[in-house]
């Protein structure tokens, strides 16, 4: 009887443990399925025109997404200009100056801001930038993405600053440097590799965001001059082309999807490998 029970327990052990292995395998294989589908479908439709030409009018085949690529770069630049300084300095505060309670509140709020759905950030940017001037603009899209950059930058900056050994700070202070000089000339340079990596990851994440752009940067079938006009962007193009009823647009949606995914994954791969895994949390 007890022998039977032992056999049962061992069998259950074997079954459950192999199921956990299968689960891990299944999840990882999804990544390769995604990569495979995009490379297969996107690779077929990607050509030089995609990078150099404007979208063709409805009904004509061909054309490219040059304006969307430039639009995405402009949006990312705005997001970086707005989000990175705020994130960096707030991170410095949390790691170097912060007291206990206020730091906890800031940290907690940062996590909550990070969890706000991107579409809600889009509404916020809309009410803030679009409503007063009554038209969509690149600037509004940049503001939306910039807000999303902040929380990720704060947390990674703080983490890397904390990883700088105390002895370095003490050394600088022992030489008579004031606190801010210690931070600016010793601590920040020591942590710069990690901080820059965190910033790149933050930008990579917002580069793929679609929802907050739908009613801020909107879209544009032509070039967008300056910062006051609506602009096309790669993620929004993937969306509009994928739900459109034209085969040629579907083809281009795959191509745009491949370019977008390649950008985002390469940025992630590069920065994470350069740094070693485990140092930057994705959530």
């Amino acid at each position: 009887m007890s022998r039977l029970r032992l056999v049962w327990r061992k069998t259950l052990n074997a079954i459950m443990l192999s199921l956990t292995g299968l689960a891990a395998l299944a999840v990882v294989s999804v990544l390769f399925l995604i990569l495979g589908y995009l490379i297969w479908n996107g690779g077929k439709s990607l050509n030089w025109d995609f990078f150099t030409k404007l979208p063709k009018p409805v009904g004509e085949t061909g054309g490219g997404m040059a304006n969307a690529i430039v639009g995405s770069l402009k949006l990312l630049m705005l997001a970086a200009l707005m989000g990175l300084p705020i994130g960096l300095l707030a991170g410095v505060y949390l790691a170097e100056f912060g007291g206990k309670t206020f730091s906890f509140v800031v940290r907690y709020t940062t996590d909550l801001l990070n969890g706000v759905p991107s579409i809600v950030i889009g509404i916020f940017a809309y009410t803030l930038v679009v409503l007063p001037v009554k038209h969509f603009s690149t600037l509004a899209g940049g503001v939306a993405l910039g807000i999303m950059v902040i929380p990720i930058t704060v947390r990674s900056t703080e983490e890397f600053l904390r990883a700088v050994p105390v002895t370095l700070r003490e050394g600088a202070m022992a030489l008579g440097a004031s606190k801010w000089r210690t931070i600016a000339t010793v601590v920040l340079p020591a942590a710069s590799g990690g901080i820059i990596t965190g910033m790149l990851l933050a930008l990579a994440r917002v580069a793929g965001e679609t929802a907050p752009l739908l009613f801020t940067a909107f879209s544009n079938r032509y070039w967008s001059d300056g910062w006051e006009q609506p602009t096309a962007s790669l993620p929004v193009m993937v969306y509009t082309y994928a739900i459109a009823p034209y085969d040629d647009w579907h083809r281009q949606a795959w191509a745009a999807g491949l370019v977008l995914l390649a950008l985002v994954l390469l940025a992630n791969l590069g920065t994470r490998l350069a740094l070693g895994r485990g140092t930057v949390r994705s959530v």
Partner: protein
Amino acid sequence: MSSAATIIERATPPESGPRALIRRLRHGDEVAHVLTLLFAASILLITSMVVYELWLNSHLSRAKFGWAFFRTGVWDPVFDHFGAAPFIYGTLITSIVSLVIAVPLGLAAAIFLSELAPRRISDSIAFLIDLLAAVPSVIYGLLGIFIVVPLMRTTIGPALINTLGYLPYVGRLFRGPNYGVGFFTAGIVLAVMVVPFIISVSREVLLTVPREQREAALALGATRWESTWKVVVPWARTGIMGSVFLALARALGETMAVTMVIGNDPKIAASLFAPGYTIAAVIANEFTEATGDLYLSALIELGLVLFLMTFILNGLARLLILATERGGGHP
């Protein structure tokens, strides 16, 4: 570091008056402190401004519909009549479906990574899963439209209807016409999107369980699985709950992928295969077309509802994860 700072502060005798102030400013510490403090405070400001703007701009809709907004199932822009019920229903149903799929899968994978796999393999798989979490949601939507929806129409849907559809009670969820788009399809796509978060957080929480717990269980004659399931997982359960809440918050607020596969039909249907709508999806689809202030205001109120739902869930999740990582699930 703080000890070094106090030593230096004590070494300089305390001075008062404008000269001392100038000296401190020249050293710049106070300036740097205040400057960074302002930037840190700006995060609080931005977050509260989000709430304020949503509240302010949803005023028209709140004044007109009141609490009935949540009970009304009609969404009719032509007659300016707006109710949130179908969207709240759709948001909850798709999120629940995704969790039913993602939680067992994610927890199992996290157990494998923390308990079984050698550290090196575990780390590289976790790395790949982090990459999966980085895939933009519009890409999931693209694959959803062109891969999952056809698959659902031809293979998965009929298979479920012919098996689970015959069950008592639960069966009604799996009956009815199958268009390929709908709650269930959205749930599948969402499951794939949130599973990396469950794995990543659960794995970290499981790794914080003390080694002695496992060894004690094994020494008492438990099998590997028994020590994992009866000792390690219960120890980490608060953190695992946290990861599930985090995943739920993600699923509730996810926009693009859901918009592309749910069918965008504001109806409350019992069948999981019926097309539906979610809060995020209706905002994405109708915001730019919203003519009339009341229409826009109703959409913004939906945004406020979504914001509050995710805000509360995220708040709980963070607390649970903090509690586990600090003290373990047991007192």
